[in-house]
């Protein structure tokens, strides 16, 4: 089944801007584990980057 292949240049496929992703209300999220995950992956001072066995 053929489908029309749209160009990626169409405005429909532009990435969202920072402004479009800015939260619209008081800014607290539903509670998920995500905050933890994000923090663990970008934080520079967390224990997981240390190798306790070899210190």
């Amino acid at each position, binding site marked *: 089944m053929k489908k029309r292949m749209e160009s*990626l240049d169409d405005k429909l496929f532009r990435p969202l801007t920072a402004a479009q992703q800015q939260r619209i209300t008081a800014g*607290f999220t539903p509670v998920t*584990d995500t*905050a933890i995950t994000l*923090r663990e992956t970008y934080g520079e001072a967390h224990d997981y980057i240390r190798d306790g066995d070899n210190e």
Partner: protein
Amino acid sequence: MTTSEPGAASANREPVFTLFACCIPVQGARRSVVCDLQRQSFQFIPNGLYEILSEHAGKTVAEIKAIYGHEYDEEIDEYFAFLLHHEFGFWSSDPERFPALDLAWETPERITNAILDVDEGSRHDYGAILRQLDDLGCKALEVRCFHRCSLRELRAILEAARHGRLRSIDLLAGHGPELTPDALEGLAREHPRISRIVVHSAPERRQMPPLRTGVTIEYRTEVIDSPRCCGQIHPGYFVVDFETFAEGQKHNTCLNRKLSVDARGEIKNCPSMTRSFGNVREVSLHSALAQRDFAALWSINKDQIAICRDCEFRYVCTDCRAYLRDAADLYSKPSKCTYDPYTAEWQPPADVPAGIHTKGAPE
């Protein structure tokens, strides 16, 4: 020898485009996205490219171009250049060596996240509530104080959470003279489980630079005096990560494994919902959780929800089951979502959401 090692026969095979396992396309009605779960981002793609990546996965570019009668050769080349540019995949003569991720979602905790609402009339026994949440394995807690808070009050809540297994506490508190940036920084240092502090009803909006530990402190002018402020659906709330994506396949991304205690002590799935499973002063959280219907909403996933099932954001959106377009239909779209997946357009948000009002504005 009847079989050869994988790859042995691949030397003569034409390479095919293979998505990285963490880059997963999701089709919407008007457009699709590729979710990069490792980089925690997504890119929009045309539905034609989604079709190539799904129905024609494992085919060479020449085969794909031929399938479309060479009518779209230029677009197809553009598509693969786009995928390579964004590092969504690679060329491989051995695609079978790269299986898809297992999206089965499991967790040992009976409750993973909780909301505790507090107002000036609350008479919570924080120690008892936190102990019970700990027993249930709760990892993330959001405490929402709708009233003007003193540091002493916040300390009382946080002290009760000091020795449990909680990994993160999000704190929302009404502005009071004691809640200065220095005081809140001190609080965050005293209680390393705090991941975020939002002070509402503040005289001016202010975002403090994140602390070294990643904790953010934010002052907002909006008055948040009830749970009605919750339930917003907006790109700012999308969560693009493996856990949410996997959980969203079969579970509700807001309510699954969630337990809430509202300001009056009523145990609910969500404080915005009317159904109570008992008051925490009389019923233990374990008993509430054991009631037959407590987990009934946990498995309502986005593939079952009208309109959402056609939305490309359905596995990164943190749903809302409390505020629905049709209150009588548990499978209707969240009422605070203004996105139309059939046109791929967001409508401007309706003025100020219920539950939030700007200082001085009429309720």
